[in-house]
């Protein structure tokens, strides 16, 4: 068969799949190869399909025979929560830096574990932004507490603890009672955020604690009388 004739190619093309997979019987294969020798277009198609055929062994039919795996339905919400917590932590850090420039001496004199409790702010949102003080080198913990009917929404931002550390978060009420807010595992070398909740009302919350491994860090919370 003469090459470069589209009509002729139409006859041979459907065999190219079996050909590049090495499945074409001898006679058919020889006839096709005779065509390929004279037909640059079919040769190019065979080469291109051959590249696809060489990928097939990489795929596991046991995997692609199953429906595509999907993440948990709430992953999108968790990501939105983590981004929201970072936004709040970023705003809090900016406020903290502004506050530091005004009151550096007071900050330096702060004792015990907790150094700063900043007022909630902006748009009348009665959130509490808390930065933990007196932490080991490299460790940073910020938290944002927001009031809800059910209690308090707690966003915790942690950086610098050992990856894999289980962190337990709790709030302390006016009589020193401890109300859990939840746990999360810090896994990253850089930072992490967690969205948790506690049944304790924010107006009754006096402190927040983060137990990271065998260390517990506390910071005071006083919505009625925020230190600046």
């Amino acid at each position, binding site marked *: 068969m003469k090459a470069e004739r589209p009509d002729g190619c139409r006859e041979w*093309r*459907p*065999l*190219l*799949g*079996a050909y*590049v*997979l090495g*499945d074409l019987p001898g006679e058919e294969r020889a006839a096709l190869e005779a065509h390929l020798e004279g037909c640059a277009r079919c040769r190019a198609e065979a080469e*291109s*399909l051959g*590249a*696809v*055929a060489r*990928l*097939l062994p*990489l*795929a*596991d*039919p046991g*995997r*692609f*025979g199953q*429906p*595509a*795996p*999907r*993440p*948990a339905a709430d*992953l*999108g919400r*968790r*990501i*939105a929560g*983590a*981004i*929201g917590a*970072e936004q709040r932590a970023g705003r809090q850090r900016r406020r903290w830096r502004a506050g530091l420039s005004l009151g550096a001496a007071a900050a330096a004199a702060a004792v015990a574990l907790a150094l700063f409790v900043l007022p909630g702010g902006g748009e009348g949102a009665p959130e509490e932004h808390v930065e933990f003080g007196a932490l080991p080198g490299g460790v940073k913990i910020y938290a944002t507490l927001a009031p809800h009917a059910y209690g308090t929404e707690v966003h915790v931002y942690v950086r610098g603890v050992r*990856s*894999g550390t289980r962190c337990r978060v709790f709030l302390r009420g006016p009589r020193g009672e401890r109300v859990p807010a939840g746990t999360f595992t810090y*896994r*990253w*070398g850089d930072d992490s*955020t967690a969205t948790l909740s506690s049944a304790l009302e924010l107006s009754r919350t006096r402190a927040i604690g983060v137990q990271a491994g065998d260390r517990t860090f506390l910071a005071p919370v006083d919505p009625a009388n925020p230190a600046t």
Partner: protein
Amino acid sequence: MQSGALKRERDVREAYAAHSGELYGFALRSLGDSGLAEEAVQETFLRAWRAGDRFDPQIGSLRTWLFAILRNVVIDLGRARAARPRVAEGGAEPAVEPLEEALLSWQVEEAMRRIGEEHRRVLVETHYRGRPYAEVAAELGVPEGTVKSRVYYGLRALRVVLEEMGYEG
């Protein structure tokens, strides 16, 4: 999504709706653990959001950018996992598939899912199960030539899907 930035929550929501399934599929294929895979996807979107200003659609698609971030996240997670102490069982190290190969394998598997059922079926029966074309044709009640033709169009369909997924041969 419009223009460059991935800075608004709405942008992130749209990007998540469009790409989270694929990103999760690759993360799961690479890491072999659904919890770690979700963590990898979450970290990918967080990093994308933090660096949203740097995304330039003139350079590449959002999908390509997210996959590049995920690739780094998977490498970081792999390192973190390697650094954790292991409980030795018979001295065997867990087999870790090289990342590029995992990505390619995932792409081919995902492409196989996306081609038509008729095409996938003949490729599975003839190539993966090694059955004779005549036997497959008899089972499907079609001429053998139709099976060959479906194999051909199946490979073409795979090529199209792989190109859509960014495979450049």
